[in-house]
């Protein structure tokens, strides 16, 4: 008898029996389908199936829908479920899941999702961490300078009249108009009465240098942002289209916001970065378990 207990085969059989009993007692019904040709149907399986069919995932609504379902529809649902399950098992038995690019992609996607899931266990972001991140990426949160201005436009002379025809020196003309505007103290809202109509707008409100560039060109925008605000006419400034006299009614300088102002965005950015890091680390741990052998001829060692 003692000899029998020492027999590995016997030990193995006993362990197997124990395992069988445990699994049968504790595991849910679906797992212990002892017969591969038996399809078991229960409420939970149908609920899940229904959600996939309707492509909306709300367990409560599915349970309700199932409860209210007319018997005929329910019968059809069961038939569909059985049909799908049978086809699925047959496909597995035939090994159709091997070498299938869509299934492979889907599994990779699931693993990536799992890897991302580790982030939920990551420690909460501290205020220090946010301050450090904000300090390191301050440039990203900078608020650009902006101006509010109007302008009087004198088109470029060399476009329609040849130089010999141009009797008045354009820069002289601009200078004369500038002093006229300032002597007569022409206000902001009367700018449109002088000069010619410009291709784009008359007034510009709280516009950045980048925006002004798209309407006037680089050089104009650069010069404009060097000027100060005030109720005087300034210029002339050359644009891609001609000469402009400008009145800048207000100007806000570029500034770096305090962390408080942009806290929500900084937090979201930091979280996104951490999520990426956690995911990358998790995937790297998995990849590191493998030895990569490069069989290409010119592969470096």
């Amino acid at each position, binding site marked *: 008898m003692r000899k029998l207990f020492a027999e590995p085969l016997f030990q193995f059989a006993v362990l197997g029996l124990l395992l069988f009993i445990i699994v049968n007692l504790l595991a849910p019904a679906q797992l212990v389908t002892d017969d591969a040709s038996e399809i078991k149907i229960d409420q939970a399986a149908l609920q899940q199936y229904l959600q996939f069919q309707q492509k909306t995932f*709300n367990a409560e609504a599915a349970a309700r829908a199932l409860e209210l379902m007319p018997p005929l529809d329910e019968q059809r649902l069961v038939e569909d479920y059985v049909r799908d399950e049978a086809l699925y098992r047959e496909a597995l038995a035939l090994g159709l899941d091997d070498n299938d*690019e869509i299934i492979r992609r889907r599994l990779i996607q699931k693993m990536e999702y799992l890897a991302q899931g580790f982030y939920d266990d990551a420690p909460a972001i501290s205020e220090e961490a946010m301050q450090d991140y904000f300090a390191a990426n301050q440039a990203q949160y900078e608020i650009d300078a902006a101006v509010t201005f109007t302008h009087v436009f004198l088109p470029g002379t060399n476009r329609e009249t040849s130089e010999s025809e141009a009797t008045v020196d354009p820069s002289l003309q601009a200078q004369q108009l500038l002093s006229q505007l300032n002597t007569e103290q022409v206000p902001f809202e009367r700018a449109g009465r002088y000069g010619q109509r410009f291709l784009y707008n008359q007034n510009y409100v709280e516009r950045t240098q980048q925006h002004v560039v798209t309407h006037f060109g680089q050089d104009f925008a650069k010069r404009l942002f060097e000027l100060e605000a005030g109720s005087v006419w300034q210029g002339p400034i050359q644009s891609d289209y001609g000469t402009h006299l400008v009145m800048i009614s207000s100007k806000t300088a570029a500034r770096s916001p305090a962390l408080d102002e942009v806290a929500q965005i900084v937090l979201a950015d930091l979280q996104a970065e951490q999520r990426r890091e956690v995911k990358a680390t998790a995937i790297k741990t998995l990849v590191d378990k493998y030895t990569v052998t490069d069989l290409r001829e010119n592969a470096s060692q």
Partner: protein
Amino acid sequence: MKHISKTRLALLFVCSFITFSSQADQPKQLLWGDTHLHTSYSFDAFLNQNQSADPDTAYRWAKGQPVIHPYNRARVQIETPLDFLVVSDHAELMGVIRAIDNETAELGDVGFFADIKRRISTYFLLDAIENETGKDIFVGILPKAPADPRGDPVQDSANVLPLDPFGDTTKTESTAWYEIVDAADRHNEPGKFTSLIGWEWSSIPTGANLHRVVVSPDGGEKAKSYIPYGSDQSQYPEDLWNWLAETSEQSGARFVAIPHNSNISKGYMFAETTLRGQPITSAYARQRMLWEPVVEMTQIKGDSETHPGLSPDDEFADFETYEYYIQQTAEDYELRKGDYARSGLMRGLEIAQEIGDNPYQFGMIGSTDSHTGLASAEEYNFWGKMAKDSTPETKRLGMIRDGKTSADGWDRAAQGLAAVWAEENTRDSIFAAFQRKEVYATTGPRIAVQMFGGWEFAEDDAQATDFASTGYSKGVPMGGDLVAAPAADSQPQFLIRATKDPLSANLDRIQVVKGWVDSAGKSHERIYNVAWSEGRELVADGSLPAVGNTVDLEIPSYENSIGAPELLALWADPDFDASQRAFYYARVMEIPTPRHSLFDAISLQEKTRAEVPDTIQERAYTSPIWYTP
């Protein structure tokens, strides 16, 4: 509408029947076009029976030539040719379904098993196209309803991009892009007809429509240096703008992006936050305004000016309201403030008040978004949204036959057009008008509208023969900004002239729609009737009796015995507060005319459905003029 006492109503209105014969002083000309048109190169157009109307057909139609309809094969023709057109096919699978069907697709190597799968997909696809069941495939790749209707729809668990069974289609797409670009360059005739190169970025995470049409004024050489950016690259508009900035830097090409169908964006188009749910910053607002000066707010899939639920006091708010999301699964329409242009403009003021920058300071246009290659916006000459809904019988077959999501051709509208005030009919000139927002929308008829805002207009300026020159020298045109109130008691004035479409109905009235934000940061709206056809008086509450209805429902036809061919107004805001940010836009109403569905119903000798109106009041919406303290 709130009560306005008559004494405070400093309303200087003029209405007259003078027809302006002289356009000599007109510094700019009015050009008409469609910036949003799909051809057989769009996957959904092809799957819905447009297999023959290519970009070339689209241009020939726009220029006024007769063409063959892609579904019913009839000879069709536009009544009045367009001045410009943007062929804007979907970037995603651009030209791919068409190429697979005519066996010119160049598809990348995908390996043995995927290749079998691709062959099977192709087989089913071609079979469906042949049996006219392509729309079932189309419905099958539409997005699904979100798991979390308030979250970031891009990150939603239900936001699964349809797996692409065709492998790498870049080569086919680039061939299609070159063909589209070449067609545009071939048809561009400066001074006569303008083609602008463009495409559609079709982001629609979990059915929230965030689509943008991208338009460039540059020629084929620059356009061929890039491949259109699609929503398969990113569904976030910020990523589209970044791509536009980089591509512009690299290729020198200029762009604007034009959002459309905010009405079915599930509140995300003009939202309080960014799509990721982050607060809107100055940087976001400025980046958005750099690329998106204009919104397409009226088209076949409904009118997005406002909704009766948002503007209960607006008697004309319920116009071509369209409440059907583009998705597979049923979801009831839920009205949100981010869905409509007016509430978007108002929200823009609220945000500007808070952060100093307005992310929603946009001008407005209309376009068709037709997928037939035919830019048709005329009620009596409307050729459908998809090629298949071009006949009275097929127009009533719903696209999605799943209970509430179903909409058919009668639920859709025969509209709209983009009107542009430009120096000349060229790519550069039209593009500049878009950038300065001197553009406006109509729901189809070519109602001519000019609007100027200023502080010092004289009473007779509205009647002046040099109306436009006066407007430009004393004020700013639509799309512009008013800044300084010259005196504490100044009121902004608006000089507006509207003329009827020579081939369409008379005008009922001009209204000014004002939106403003109070010191508590809350926005408000009010509508003022500022000019109308004679025979009516304003009621004490500021409202105006209806113009009447001359439509003969049997023929159908209407008579221009009511309304006016032209309306003029010089109006000053009686409720102006110089400390509050505000916008003003004009809405010009036509008298009632028959809707496209009525023509169908009569030809079928049936009645229209109760919820489909027989007559409509077509209209024009100008781009706003903004006031900033």
